[in-house]
């Protein structure tokens, strides 16, 4: 008789075919690897658990944009039966991050991505900073660069220190003399 078994791992498009033939009392095992171009890539789902207890199931191609997650996947001991725990990311922030990763995993021209990114960062201040922290923790370089650049642009758009402080709610804890001293020290940069 023939015994056929098939096993498929996440991204392999090969099929291992195992034949066991019984010839008299001898068993012959033949292994054949068939590369099948018709099989579409089976993507594995990754489960992420946020700090507030919610679970997100996403394709590995999207999750792998985070270098932190990529390392966790490689390390078997990191996953629990519930998926990978992300201690520093809440569900709100993670869903926004996933939105970014989904768009950047999709097929789109550079121009289209730039336009999409510009719209993506039109959010309130606390979200931007949450995204910076999340992108840093999850090690997603594209998102970190984008969010840092957004904040930098806002700083550059301010005409003076007062405006920067107002924009970001920074409290001026210098005495007038201290501030005057600092301004004198680097006078050239204020001109």
């Amino acid at each position: 008789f023939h015994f056929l078994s098939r096993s498929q791992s996440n991204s392999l498009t090969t099929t291992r075919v195992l034949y066991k033939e019984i010839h008299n009392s001898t068993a012959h095992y033949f292994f054949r690897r068939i590369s099948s171009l018709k099989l579409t890539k089976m993507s594995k789902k990754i489960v992420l658990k946020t700090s507030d207890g919610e679970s997100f199931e996403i394709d590995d191609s999207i999750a792998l944009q985070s270098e932190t997650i990529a390392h966790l996947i490689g390390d078997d001991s990191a996953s629990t039966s519930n998926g990978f725990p992300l201690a520093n990311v809440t569900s709100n922030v993670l869903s926004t991050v996933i939105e970014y990763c989904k768009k950047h995993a999709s097929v789109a021209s550079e121009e289209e991505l730039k336009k999409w990114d510009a719209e993506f960062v039109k959010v309130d201040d606390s979200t931007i900073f949450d995204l910076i922290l999340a992108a840093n923790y999850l090690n997603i370089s594209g998102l970190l660069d984008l969010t840092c650049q957004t904040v930098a642009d806002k700083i550059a758009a301010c005409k003076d220190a007062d405006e920067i402080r107002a924009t970001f709610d920074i409290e001026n804890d210098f005495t007038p003399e201290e501030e005057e001293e600092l301004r004198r020290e680097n006078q050239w940069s204020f001109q």
Partner: protein
Amino acid sequence: MEESFSKEKGKCGQRSAGFSSAGEDMISKLPDSLISQILLCLSTKESVRTSVLSNRWKSLWRLIPVLDLASSELPDYNAFVSFIDSFLGFGREDKSCLHKLKLVIHKCENDQSCVTRWIDFVATPKLEHLHVDFGLVSRECMEVMPLSLYVCETLLHLTLNWVSLGWFKSVSLPRLKTMRLESNIYANEASLQLLISSCPVLEDLNIVRRPDDNVKVLRVHSQALTSLSMRVGGGHDDDEVYIEDFDFEDFAVLIDAPRLKYLTFDYELSPSKVISNSGSLTKVNLLGCLCLWDDLVKRKFFTSISGVKDMNISYDTFEIIKTIMPLAQFCNLSCLEAAVLPDSLGSLPRFLESFPNLKSLILDLCDCTLTLREEIRLSFVPQCLLSSLGFVELKTSCCGTPTKMEVASYFAKNAVMLKKLVLHLSMLEEKSVVLRDLLALPRRSSTCQIIVC
């Protein structure tokens, strides 16, 4: 009471709509590394300004591992020097950990030389970008680069403009990928050759030479080089180096870079140019003056580049090619951009015979203020027009209409596979009239689209 007073003081400026609706200072709460990441996106000048925001911000700008400054941004050269000294020296027990140092310096004769000690300080352990540009400076004022530069293990990108590369014995730049050298003075030919060939992963090299840089024969020997661009520039007025008066007779360029794909000569004035191992060459730009005079040298040169797929030539190069026609066969060439003087148009059909598989042709008919000596008549039809040429663009914005029409009708009439013919018109020409005449042209290819812009 004091607390509320200072809070009011801080919020006296105009509030930008929408951004700080939370009323909480989230940016200052970010860790140092992330604020540094944000400040990296700003110029050094903009990030220095943040020092007055609050105590938290007082010294954050000093943590940024990038210094990008032009001496013109500070009130004078001495202020520039003291700022950099303080930035590099601040709070670091051992050497600086700068990733990138970019300095654009304008100095006069009497200003002190400082770049050497700065480079010595930053050259290890993490420097990846070094860009030193003195702008136009006379030869006497050129600063000599320190030896520490040549053994900077982590350097990826190096730009040196208007400096003096003194004598050095050993070069160890194991990671250097791109190098740009402009108008520098070298100790001798051998040192420049050593610098280029000692970089094992150098991919991109851009050299702008000056005739008095102590290099006559330049050997570019590199295993990894994929892109090379060479040009000749001038010197400072005080140096009185005039290219027109210079004798380039003994100058030569010898290139041996088996992985070289892209080559540009843009006014490279050496009369001897030899390229060996040109098997990987795919795109060549021969712009400005090619300056090859000897027929044998010319033939060898064009034969050595005859495997390219894409070529761009100036009208001077076309004139040079005319003297050695028929040119070697460029069997792989599919894209050609050529500038042609109106008087040389007669040679165009025979010239195209060297490109049997040409698919796309862009012609720049230039300097048409010269009146033609005789009307051009293009009759010979080269192979590529019969079998492969699918796209022709005539950039003729200053050309007289009769010449344009003659060239356009030549292609329309004879190119069997032509799909698109694009014609650029000057402001003075009547688009509608030209278009009407063009559309009336007999066309060999039934799918030919004529576009006027």
